[in-house]
């Protein structure tokens, strides 16, 4: 049932980095880890809306650039003492291309 939308070449996102996707309801950040996994999350920290795409990526987490909250890329959960969660969307790499589950756009409309 899920259809995948082609986004861009994996190489357009730096290793341990992120880039943004514009959607009608704000930006989604696509992260690439050191081992070439990709994850898609809302680009807003649960703390004070820090732009997560600008954070430092390590293992499967990103550190928010504003006040250093650490967020799991897999679950969107805030790590450590702080609490909160960011919405995540299914993403994967197929033949060197990043693709996102089309249903994610729908999900965002509901959110």
């Amino acid at each position, binding site marked *: 049932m899920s259809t995948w*939308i082609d*986004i*861009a070449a994996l190489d*357009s*996102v*730096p*290793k*341990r*980095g992120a*880039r*943004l*996707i*514009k*959607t*009608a*309801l704000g*930006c989604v950040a*696509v992260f690439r880890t*050191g*081992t*070439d*996994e990709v*994850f898609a999350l809302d680009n807003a920290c649960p703390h*004070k*809306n*820090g*732009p997560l795409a*600008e*954070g*430092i*990526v*390590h*293992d*499967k987490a990103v*550190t928010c*650039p*504003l006040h*250093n909250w*650490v967020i799991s890329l*897999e679950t969107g959960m805030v790590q450590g003492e702080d609490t909160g969660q960011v919405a995540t969307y*299914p993403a*994967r*790499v197929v033949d060197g291309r990043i693709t996102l589950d089309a249903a994610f*756009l729908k999900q*965002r*409309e509901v959110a």
Partner: protein
Amino acid sequence: MKNAVIIGAGMASGRVLEHLIEADPEAFNFTLFNSEPRGNYNRIMLSPVLSGEKSYAEIVTHDDGWYGQNKVTCRFGEAVTSIDREAKVVRGANGDVPYDKLIIATGSAPFIIPVPGHDLPGVIAYRDLDDTNAMIDAADAPGKPAVVIGGGLLGLEAAAGLALRGMSVTVIHLNGHLMERQLDPAAGYLLQKDLENRGIKVHCNGATKAILGTDRVEGVELDDGTVYDASLVVMAVGIRPEATVAKNAGLEVNRGILVNAQMETSDPDILAVGECVEFDGQLFGLVAPLYDQAKVLAKILLEEEGSFVPKELSTKLKVTGCDLFSAGDFAEGEGREDIVFRDPARGVYRRLVIEDDQLVGAVMYGDTADSNWFFGLIRDKTEIADMRDTLIFGPAFQGGAPSDPLSAVAALPREAEICGCNGICKGQIEDAIAAGATDLTAIKATTKASASCGTCTGLVEQVLAVTLGDDFVIPAAQSICACTDMTHEDVRRMIKSQELKSMEAVWQECGWKTSCGCHVCRPALNYYLLADWPLEYTDDAQSRFINERKHANIQKDGTFSVVPRMWGGITTPDELRAIADAAEKFAVPTVKVTGGQRIDLLGVKGEDLPAIWKDLNDAGMVSGHAYSKGLRTVKTCVGTDHCRFGTQDSTGLGIKLEKTLWGSWTPHKLKLAVSGCPRNCAEATCKDIGVICVDSGYQISIGGAAGMDVRETELLCQVATEAETIDVIKAVTQSYRENAKYLDRIYKWVGKVGMDWVKEQIEDLDNRAALVERFEISQSVYRKDPWAEHVTKAETYQPIADLTLEAAE
């Protein structure tokens, strides 16, 4: 008897023949075509033939006797040119052969990058015996240069073989680390180190631009301008299925010849096997799955049941002394966790990837003795929840072996320098301990190690602990972060003495406990590496805080501020006009004069940064680095130009200093000021480095601050000329860069090493000159405008996709 014709006498069809003949020798008449003028040999053993460890005779699988005995008609040295499916006939150069069943096993063809010069004599692929012999011939005299393009399995085996034959080999690899499909960067680092130890040069991130030469290959040129001499070039950049004959016959072909699980092509009388096939979207490049395919294909021809199921694969490299192993999937997928183990003493690295309490991937380097055990866990999808805590230590350690925080120091050779100030090596400290020095004070007294700046104290204590065992208890020291047990000072010494020049090298040799560090250690390591190895290390943008990655200060709403440099606080009407224009054009909400004598444009959108920089660049302005752990501003007063008390040209000196120091990275921010007389209007005595001009010269003082701590500077020295002032400031800056802990301002660093030690560094004129020289070497790389550079990659500041329209549908 039916006629079976086979195209290709390779490793896959060889197995098919063995299975068929063993099951029923009377079922088929065989005709075997092969383009190579020989029958089946063990292709994977070409590497030992290349290195001289084996001869061709030793790797032949089926010889003439075997083919004769089993009634296989051989058509070797004859390529099949076409297939007539209507007539069920195969066409070779020496005549047609009819078939009832046809087996295509044409393997694959090496990929040749179509750069200029790729067809010169001396450029070869690595696929068959003829290629191997051509390489052996090229290595006829010692020391001849060879270039191998491609740092994957084949390329590295070729490189190692050629090196053993005495050639001087360089490997060019496109990716950032070797064998990136099988290894992660950490294991790739260890492999590179082992290869370099045997004299093979490795050039990663290298894109081949052209192969040079007139009648024969003479060299290889890369995109970055590097040129390597070469009397032989081996291209080992990949393979693609050899499906030409099948495609021309109208069979369904995608990347390879499409087959079902019974190895049947789109024509039921034609089957295919080996590297030439594509099954369920997959291609195959290792023999294990081909052997499974061969078994299935034989069953189908004998009209039995059979079905091919791809299994997990594992990889090893056949280069003696490079012990590596990788299996399963250690790259993609959600819900996974890593376990990492490093033993720098033995050069061991292991990484396990776990998903849903099962092992799904493993990468190992150095010690692969347990690889089969791990591979078994992956293949059998064993539940590992119970042994999770000790899993990484392998089957023998199911009781648990804690990682040893001292192993990195234990691994150091006796020649490793521990104390940089006094040039004391580990061996000298060990000797002192053996002679009775059993604590830090005694070591200081007998060897002088850690008696000067003291930053190596941690390492000296670790040598004591390693040598004395339980008799020495290390005072607790603060490690950089949870990724390591080492302190900043320990890691800095390791980077220098062990010549660690990449992140991977530091993680491995210092025993990092995570796979790729964290937001605390990575920026520090990035700084240490670029400060110590400015020419060798490439700055890693992903290890920098956003301000330094994007060369602008992030604001609380995610916008940025833009501060162009105003050298020494001097500006012009033209610059002010350009700033005003930019502020209007990009609707900058706030324009403010900063405390650093320049103008801040606050609230610029991330996407607009390259465009506003471009406008400012065009008006002659560059980045003010208002965001950097590096030189910020040199504040000045008006000095002799206008002021009735001025003693020297403070504005002019400030501008010269700013033009010399700008772009340099330092452990924390670096602010300077030059005042024209002791009235000190530029507030020079609360800066990191301050200059007060006096009639007789220049008083240089350091260690001031006016932030969370307010400090007055302390006098470093007084000199007579401007030129000497600039030299002293470069030297003290370089000493700070080389020795301080990341995020220590100068006053904190001086607090640790002592003002006397810093004075000694500067007073010793040879040392001062050496510091100045090293500062200049670093500035040859970093004294440039990052804005201008980023304007050329403006697209990286834009979103990668715009789905606003799709959502509207």
